[in-house]
């Protein structure tokens, strides 16, 4: 059994209440930080821990925190990104729903470290009942002196509020989130300036994912060095993975970073193997935006080494033969699934969610959806594959925010690894309506030079 730092207590009856959470050792990190540490010392522990952002990009949290501008007389803000809308990802919801005080505790300790006196949790509008769970937890924290004025008699003041979106994936992008939090449309902002300099209401702001903020609790409790002992290389600590698709045991798992993908996928402790005794066809290991990898690259890298559940190993080989850990949304496809259909489905998602500000993204996502639909429904031509390749290439890197890249990568990866399946659809339009292509043929890999 791997160590669990975030969700080991989720099954304790009543853990969603303050009393039980406190009895189980909750809010110790607040006591420790506020009473025995300076804010900079907390930041230092987070740096030592090697914690990396759990929202998708994996940027080192301690470093991000140290970029926060601190001009005199201007308030700073911590904003928790609980927008969780990346297809395949449902881990933050699990944490907030089951053990809401964990996030509240992390918000207090992190806000103290950053010198914020007002902080916000922005949760997607569809999680309205979770918003109410959080509000209840926050009210309890106020009632017990962990929020409000002069917390624990230390002179530190903090107000914490929850607000929500109303259905828009783009609001997970941090600058769109800030726009939305200001009560506007979720249009991403041009960067720079970065939120660390000009964020919420043009004040210095840190935006962190739910899980990132939660991880600060064990880091402060046990020290950054202890945290960094878990994991492998620059992938330290534990990670919540939400597993779904054709597996026996979909759900949310906390893993120690660095366990073999094979163990995660096949052991009974985690996914429990492919459902109905089918064969594995492919895997999207980090949410819909990351490249799909064919079965023979899931458990092994192109070099033939064991692939591990870590930032580095999952991206080993770059986009040619790797993918990304991303948000930890682990989607598994069995031999009956159609890659063309799935790619079309994701393309539709990105077309729907594009905010429309940049033409490559707005027009490109629509074109990709149309061309993919054409191929999937038996009206494709061979040139369409090259057209798709061309469109995705023109989006990537040419937009205000990374949604454009996120829309391009899945299409590129599907063509890269499953070109024969696209061609088969085009050559067998009738057959493709009733039958699936099945498993991709094993390819012999030329090692990247």
């Amino acid at each position, binding site marked *: 059994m791997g160590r669990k730092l975030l969700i080991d207590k989720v099954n304790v009856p009543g853990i969603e209440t303050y009393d039980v959470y406190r009895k189980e050792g909750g809010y110790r990190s607040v006591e420790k930080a506020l009473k025995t540490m300076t804010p900079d010392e907390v930041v230092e522990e987070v740096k030592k821990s090697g914690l990396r952002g759990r929202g998708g990009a994996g940027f080192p949290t301690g470093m991000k925190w140290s970029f926060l501008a601190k001009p005199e007389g201007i308030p700073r803000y911590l904003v928790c990104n609980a927008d969780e*809308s990346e297809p395949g990802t449902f881990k933050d919801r699990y944490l907030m729903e089951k053990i809401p005080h964990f996030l509240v505790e992390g918000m207090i300790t992190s806000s103290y470290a950053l010198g914020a006196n007002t902080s916000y949790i922005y949760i997607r509008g569809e999680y309205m009942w979770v918003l109410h769970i959080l509000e209840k937890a926050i009210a309890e924290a106020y009632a017990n002196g962990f929020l409000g004025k002069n917390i624990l008699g230390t002179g530190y003041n903090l107000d914490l509020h929850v607000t929500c*979106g109303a259905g828009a994936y783009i609001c997970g992008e941090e600058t769109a989130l800030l726009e939305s939090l200001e009560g506007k449309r979720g249009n991403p902002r041009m960067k720079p300036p970065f939120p660390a300099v000009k964020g919420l209401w043009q004040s210095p702001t840190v935006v962190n994912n739910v899980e990132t903020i939660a991880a600060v609790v064990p880091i402060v409790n046990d020290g950054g060095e202890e945290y960094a002992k878990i994991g492998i290389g620059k992938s330290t600590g534990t990670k919540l993975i939400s597993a779904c698709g054709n597996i026996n045991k979909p759900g949310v798992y906390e893993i120690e970073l660095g366990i073999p993908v094979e163990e995660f996928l096949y052991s009974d402790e985690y996914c429990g193997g492919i459902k109905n005794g089918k064969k594995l066809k492919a895997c999207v290991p980090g949410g819909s935006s990351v490249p799909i990898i064919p079965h023979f690259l899931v458990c092994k890298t192109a070099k033939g080494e064991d692939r591990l559940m870590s930032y580095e190993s999952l991206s080993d080989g770059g986009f040619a033969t790797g993918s990304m850990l991303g948000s930890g949304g682990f989607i598994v496809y069995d031999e009956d699934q159609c890659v063309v259909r799935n790619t079309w*489905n994701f393309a539709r998602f990105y077309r729907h*969610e594009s905010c429309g500000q940049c033409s490559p993204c707005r027009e490109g996502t629509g074109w990709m959806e149309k061309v993919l639909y054409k191929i999937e429904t038996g009206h494709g031509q061979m040139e369409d594959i090259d057209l798709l390749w061309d469109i995705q290439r023109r989006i990537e890197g040419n937009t205000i925010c990374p949604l454009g890249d996120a829309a391009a990568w899945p299409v590129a990866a599907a063509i890269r690894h499953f070109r024969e399946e696209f061609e088969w659809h085009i050559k067998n339009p009738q057959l493709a309506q009733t039958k699936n292509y099945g498993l991709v043929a094993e390819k012999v890999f030329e090692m990247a030079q």
Partner: protein
Amino acid sequence: MTSTDQKIEFSPENMQLVKRLMGEYPEGKHKSALLRILHIAQRQFGGWLSSDVMDYVAEVMNLKPIEVYEVATFYSMYFTKPTGKYVFDVCHTGPCAIEGAEKLCNHIEKRLGVKEGETTADGMFSWRGVECLGACGYAPMLQLGDSFREFLTPEKVDQLIEELKNKV
């Protein structure tokens, strides 16, 4: 019921909540509460946001009406046209699709006898396909009001429809 049948005014409890929410932001930044307040308005005024309702929200929040319109039309959870009393938001994104979301949509379409985005003649039900709702491991699923219905089958959806029909 459309919002024109009733006086557009927040109930005392909602008005209190609206005031509290606006107070959660620094002086002059209360526009931040707009998204939550629109959810409250939509719920109280018949499940959608008419221009009268949006104007009322603008007035209560001391915003220009356009500031409310542009937000209401950006986010998928706000309806600017009337809907059924119950709206089934069926997730049709990848992970749900491989667990049978499409079949579920087809079943709902047949069962209710209305196309995506339309409302049954009795005004009771609408349905639409929506993007990932963060329940991919519990697929297929739909959202109904503030709740998620997960691990669905056509039979469970039929049951749900019957339940809702029998509720007054």
